[in-house]
């Protein structure tokens, strides 16, 4: 994939300019180039070099800082540590963001070809038919301008292409897909399954974009549990290794790395004409021209780009006649409950790693009853004896106090006995939750930055409370001890952004007064402008975003090809 960064951009006019190379950008590039279009892709980070950027199979002692970073900088701060794929952090050097009063949104961003798909946990869940029509079926949230049946064929196509393991269950809240065989459960999974069964809660095979059989030229998973460190064999899905290569193979994709898009250029007729960007290597302003502009810079980055693309024609930012660009920012409602299972320490030591994702999970199961909140959640199951890490034994030290052989032995006894249920729940769109351009802060490229105002409503707090209660019940039914102390007044919500599932801000809708895009990710105001990252989401179901980004992008790209053929863009 070696391609030198050109200092001066190509002079020609491309068919499409894509901004970003993650799930959205990579999928758009593949479908559009295979459909015969000439595509240029701007990516704010470098090309992927797995030898340099991935840390798979490192031992902590291979790193002088043992994973905690220089001066323990990756240890106490919110930054991810040395084992994460490089260039995927909250504190991007020289690219700050801010929060309004009372908002504590954390924004994990990638600056690397393939975006955050180099580092994700691969949990791959379809929206349910109900998820996309909550307004008409249950009276809350919004209806999407597309229905489940519109995207179901694209779910099939995406799953067949990227390889997803799972099992067919027929549960209404968790539609089945095209699945590879799931991996065998770990010991910790069996415990949770036992507890769930006692309470008649479904606990089914996990669903993840990791190939358990050789698939489309990719070797099967080798079970090191390190997807977030980058998978050198590409057995876990990443855009950089699974979508970009076939796009390059068409000969119709040109990637410009280290290119930070600043503004979408607009022609006099009000159509998008290309993108201006900062070449980070030379710190110069450049531009590329294109007949179609496709944003896949990630949810809030795409909103930022539109808000920064002001002109006399579009004084409030591009495609923003509705005033909703930046609005309806959502994030998964997330809380974690840990159960202690001493028996995990008494079983014979064995390799417990498995894939880097869930082997079992608990889909939303209370859809058939009245709850004191709207929407659903699911639980991802992790835990057991994993790779020893810094910080793993602080709690033991705190509880045991003292020092010496007894302390050391206590650590061994406790090691690997924790099992976590990670809750991921639906956030209902609300206009008070948004991002906007910060009037005071430029990044080091001279581009105005974002200010976040993420607000949970009462519904999200009630949901988190319910999550904690039901997770404690499940873990206790499994024989685990849970810590009853609730860490925060909001029931242990991670501070928003902690799970990197931010969606909304450039939402699709059938009413152009209250939305930015059509169901095909096409801007209502500018027909040759598309946004297909999670910015386009109308609501924020409990399902992790990536599969849904991929399917919506594929569908939008086919539509765009069709329109281009008809000369309608």
């Amino acid at each position, binding site marked *: 994939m070696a391609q030198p960064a050109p200092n001066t951009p190509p002079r020609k006019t491309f068919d499409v300019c894509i901004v970003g190379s993650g799930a959205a950008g990579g999928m758009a590039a593949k479908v559009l180039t295979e459909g015969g279009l000439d595509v240029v892709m701007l990516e704010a980070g470098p090309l992927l070099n797995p030898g*340099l*950027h991935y840390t798979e199979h490192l031992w*902590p*002692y*291979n*790193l*002088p800082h*043992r994973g905690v*970073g*220089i*001066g*323990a*900088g*990756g240890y106490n*701060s919110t930054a*991810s540590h*040395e084992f994460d794929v*490089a*260039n995927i*952090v909250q*504190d991007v050097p020289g690219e700050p963001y801010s929060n309004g009063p009372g908002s504590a949104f954390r924004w994990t961003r990638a600056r690397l070809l393939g975006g955050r798909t180099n580092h994700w946990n691969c949990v791959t869940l379809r929206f349910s038919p109900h998820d996309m029509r909550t307004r008409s079926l249950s009276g809350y949230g919004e209806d999407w301008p597309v229905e489940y049946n519109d995207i179901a064929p694209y779910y099939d196509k995406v799953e067949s292409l990227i390889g997803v393991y799972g099992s067919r269950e027929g549960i209404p809240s968790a539609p089945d897909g095209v699945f590879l065989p799931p*991996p*065998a*459960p*770990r*010991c910790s*999974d*069996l415990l949770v399954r036992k507890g769930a069964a006692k309470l008649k809660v479904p606990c089914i095979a996990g669903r993840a974009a990791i190939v358990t059989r050789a698939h489309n030229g990719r070797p099967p998973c*080798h*079970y*090191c549990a*390190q997807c977030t460190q980058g998978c050198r064999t590409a057995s876990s899905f990443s855009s950089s290794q699974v979508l970009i290569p076939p796009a390059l193979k068409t000969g119709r994709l040109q990637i410009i790395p280290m290119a930070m898009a600043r503004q979408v250029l607009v022609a006099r007729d009000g159509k998008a004409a290309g993108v201006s960007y900062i070449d980070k290597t030379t710190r110069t302003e450049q531009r590329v021209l294109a007949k179609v502009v496709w944003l896949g810079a990630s949810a809030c980055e795409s909103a930022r780009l539109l808000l920064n693309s002001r002109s006399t024609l579009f004084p409030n930012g591009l495609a923003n006649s509705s005033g909703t660009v930046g609005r309806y920012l959502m994030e998964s409602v997330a809380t974690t409950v840990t159960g202690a299972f001493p028996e995990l320490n008494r*079983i*014979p*030591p*064995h*390799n417990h*790693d*498995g*894939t880097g994702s869930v082997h079992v999970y608990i889909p939303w199961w209370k859809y058939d009853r009245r709850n004191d909140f709207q929407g659903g959640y699911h639980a991802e199951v992790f835990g057991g*004896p*994993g*790779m*020893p*890490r*810094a*910080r793993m*034994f*602080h709690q*033991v*030290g*705190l509880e045991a*106090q*003292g*020092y*010496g052989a007894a302390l*050391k032995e206590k*650590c*061994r006894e406790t*090691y690997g006995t924790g099992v976590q249920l990670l809750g991921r729940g639906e956030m209902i769109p609300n206009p008070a939750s948004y991002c906007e351009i910060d009037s005071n802060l430029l990044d080091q490229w001279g581009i105005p930055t974002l200010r976040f105002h993420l607000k949970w409503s009462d519904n999200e707090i009630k949901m988190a409370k319910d999550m904690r209660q039901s997770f404690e019940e499940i873990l206790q039914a499994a024989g685990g001890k849970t810590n009853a102390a609730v860490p925060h007044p909001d029931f242990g919500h991670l501070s928003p952004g902690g799970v990197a599932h931010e969606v909304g801000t450039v939402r699709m809708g059938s009413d152009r007064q209250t939305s930015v895009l059509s169901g095909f990710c096409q801007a209502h105001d500018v027909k040759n402008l598309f946004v297909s990252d999670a910015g386009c989401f109308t609501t924020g179901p409990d399902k992790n975003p990536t599969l849904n980004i991929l399917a919506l992008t594929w569908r939008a790209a086919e539509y765009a090809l069709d329109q281009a053929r008809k000369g309608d863009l």
Partner: protein
Amino acid sequence: MKLERRTLLQLPLLAKKPKITSAPAKQDTLRTLCEFIVPGATEAGVPEFIELLSGENAEYKRQISGGLLWLDARCRDRYGKPFLGCSQTEQKELLDLIAFRENAQKDPTLSQATAFFAFLRDLTLDGYFTSRQGIAYLDFRGNSALSEFPGCPPIL
């Protein structure tokens, strides 16, 4: 103090073993303490790990250097010699004062030193259990490449 997290690109990946640069007496005291906290810590390179971090982080340096000096001063008051000059029994006697939260609750003059010891205990546990020796001690069997994942052995 806030440190910018560098990306891996800028890290001396797989660099050679860090060297201790502080004064020899301080090094020996740190070594002795680490070894008290987790037997085997010296062999596992824990003092070097702690020195590396405190050389880069002023806050860590303050806590470690300050704590070590407090220890020497207390030993001189009590036994008339610095920590290293004390017998093992005397050393343990002093550590038993500062290694337990409840002692500081009874005697507030111990509270800063107790905080220092807790900090050093955390760092020592981090260093030891991320070392080759510590990982072997835990009997961790993963981080390898398997062609099939066998799942849980038939015991649960």
